[in-house]
């Protein structure tokens, strides 16, 4: 686990170090590209951060994005949507996408709290089921022809920045300033002590999975708007990137530890690495190898720093 500020410094150091070598890395255009790429990922990661702080895990977030994207497409698409061309298509579609996430989050929440199924396996099965469902309902076809009113969310960068930033801020405030946040950390630290202290463990757990689903729904809106498609494969291979970004941002997989600020920088760090390696024109496989090395180096910096600190007192 890295500390959140260290990740922030690493981002900066990495940026400064690579800027002279990667052509166009520091250009405004490129920064916009990076931002557009990371915003939807940031939104899912924020939701996942909450779940990890709770001491759970949600592997189904990326599949929820796929299904929500399909649902949005099925409703809004001008070609085949149920509300094609209708004035209410966009608002209904957005609500339905969020609703899809919330509903699936509720299913996860129920499985974990009422069914007492370990979160990993509960959400792994929902992941398989939901992504299978998304592909089945569309019979693998992508849904295009989304209304312009919706696509604005993806085309205007500041709108997406506003949405993602707002979501992150709400999560940050909720986590650091509200009763819910305090309860969340308490459960993550020690469920039994939390229960004895009167924390409604079941409700908070359930609620957190619902919130995580909601954030996945929101991320689906951004993904769908950016890629202009209702896509049953949306974000399919992003799961490890998302979990990895959250963990690199300092959130513990064992619960009780983590911040939204850390997650923001974790996501940013991975995006910077990805982008810079592309700009350097490395081959496909070299990029993967270097990326692994950079992640490891970042973790090494963190531990040696801690050790140095502990030793020097």
């Amino acid at each position: 686990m890295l500390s959140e500020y260290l990740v922030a410094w690493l981002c900066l150091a990495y940026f400064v170090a690579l800027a002279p070598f990667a052509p166009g890395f520091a250009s405004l255009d490129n920064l916009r590209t990076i931002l557009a790429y990371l915003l939807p990922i940031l939104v899912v990661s924020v939701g996942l951060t909450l779940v990890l702080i709770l001491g759970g895990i949600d592997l189904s977030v990326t599949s929820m994005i796929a299904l929500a994207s399909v649902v949005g497409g099925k409703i809004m698409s001008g070609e085949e949507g149920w509300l094609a061309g209708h004035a209410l298509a966009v608002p209904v579609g957005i609500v339905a996408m969020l609703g899809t996430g919330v509903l699936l989050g509720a299913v996860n929440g129920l499985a974990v709290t009422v069914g007492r199924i370990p979160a990993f396996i509960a959400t792994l099965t929902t992941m398989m089921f939901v992504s299978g469902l998304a592909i089945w309902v569309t019979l693998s076809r992508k849904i295009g022809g989304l209304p312009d009113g919706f696509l604005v969310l993806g085309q205007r960068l500041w709108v997406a920045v506003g949405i993602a930033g707002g979501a992150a801020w709400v999560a940050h405030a909720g986590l650091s300033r509200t009763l819910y946040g305090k309860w969340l950390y308490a459960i993550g630290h020690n469920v039994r002590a939390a229960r004895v202290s009167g924390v409604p463990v079941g409700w908070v757990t359930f609620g957190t999975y619902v919130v995580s689903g909601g954030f996945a729904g929101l991320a689906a809106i951004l993904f769908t708007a950016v890629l202009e498609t209702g896509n049953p494969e949306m974000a399919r291979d992003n799961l490890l990137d998302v979990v990895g970004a959250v963990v690199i941002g300092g959130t513990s997989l064992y619960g009780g530890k983590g911040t939204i600020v850390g997650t923001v920088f974790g996501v940013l760090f991975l995006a910077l690495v990805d982008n810079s390696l592309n700009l350097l024109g490395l081959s496909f496989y070299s990029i993967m190898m270097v990326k692994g090395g950079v992640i490891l180096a970042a973790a090494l910096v963190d531990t040696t720093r801690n050790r140095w600190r502990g030793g020097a007192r």
Partner: protein
Amino acid sequence: MTPALRFRGITKSFFGVKVLQEVSFVVPGGQTVGIVGENGAGKSTLMNILGGNLQPDDGEMEFDGQRYAPASPGDARRAGIAFVHQELNLFGNLAIAENLFLGGFPWRARWLPWIHRRRIHERARQWLAEVNLPHAPDTLVERLSAGERQLVEIAKALAGDARLIILDEPTTSLTAVEAERLFAILGRLRQRGISLIYISHSLGDVLRLCDQVVVLRDGAVVAQAPARELTVERIVAWMVGREISQLFPPRTGQPTDRVLLDVAGVTQPGVVKRVSFQLRAGEILGLSGLMGAGRSELARILFGLDPCAAGDVRLGGESLRGQPPRERIRRGLALVTEDRRWDGLCAEATIGDNLTLVALPNLTRSPLAWVDRAAAGQAVQRIREAVRLTPAARDEQPVKTLSGGNQQKVVLAKWLLNEPQVFILDEPTRGIDVGARYEIYRLIQELAARGAGVLMISSEIEELIGLCDRILVMRRGEIRDCIEPAAFDRERILRAALHEEVGV
């Protein structure tokens, strides 16, 4: 006679704070040395250095005439030093026998790393018999109660064939009877010539058991003397640096007639049977019993953590039937659990967060349940002073860095903040030094004086006699006796807890 163990100038700091300063003393071979000191005096830290868990910043040790510098607990074990830790160090997912031999399993053959099961079971059986624990060696430790685990921990130290055994507060989960049994075991060990280091806050026990007593204060040795020359009062004076005239504060209030908690026929098959009693405002009601008598279970049932098949619990006249703990807390019930590490604290969380956890709903501003940081900060300050938590610790420090006694204060304090009417305290002074103990007694009495009712579960009969207005005795899930102050008597309580029926 060569000294068995010598500490020379041991010094240790955590994050710039010196917790041990130039500690030097000798543990003569075959003798029992008691180490006493307030919470946080550095006793456990010193033992952790001896046991190879921590490395000293400075100083050295000598064991059996040779330089001794363990780099790991394994080194210490190989050198012949066993360690019964203050906090239990057992593995619930392993069998008792496996816990006993985890560091060095006997092999079936020299060249084959294959556990000799029969042998470890035999030997485990032998050591379990020694500590009087009637369980099969392949019982999983998670199925044992806290007290039983403590006995396993002791059996583990015995099983290591050590020449020096460190016991860091071994009696905290034991009742009087088991403690006596432990003392008998320790007596046998001494006869075999094994040196012992015994740490306890029960100074009477220390004086009874030990040949020498070392007193630590703020990480420095302030006195070392043969036990027979000492009295509890002198030790206390050294420990706290001032005289303490009495162990129990004087009573200020009196129980009233108003019934706060009315327990009527509470029954849960296999756990408790027809438990009935009433707790009045201003009353401190003791609950005594042997290990495993069902007192903790009763507390959990009263608090709504465990199911209750029949009977009713009324708080201030209203039934609590079917209410979750949260609702009971809201109505003024508090439970200090006996195991602070598992049920009491979020060890990794900060002191501040632990302190405010229970009272948080009252420290928020609706409708978003926004935490009022200023109010929370004030509440923390107030309550820290009320329980006299060590001022050295910052609010943002994780609770796990506190000494055991201070941790227990945090557990108590978090409930105080909520100002409940009825306190259920399950072993509230476990592992707490005399000074802090006095303060906790004072706190309990203040609560009663302000009109709260206190149900105090304790395994220390003296404590109950010194503090309570009435004492209930529990045996095998039932209340067997109810003793009024006039009849307070160690013998009678023990008898009721053991077997003889005494008229209720």
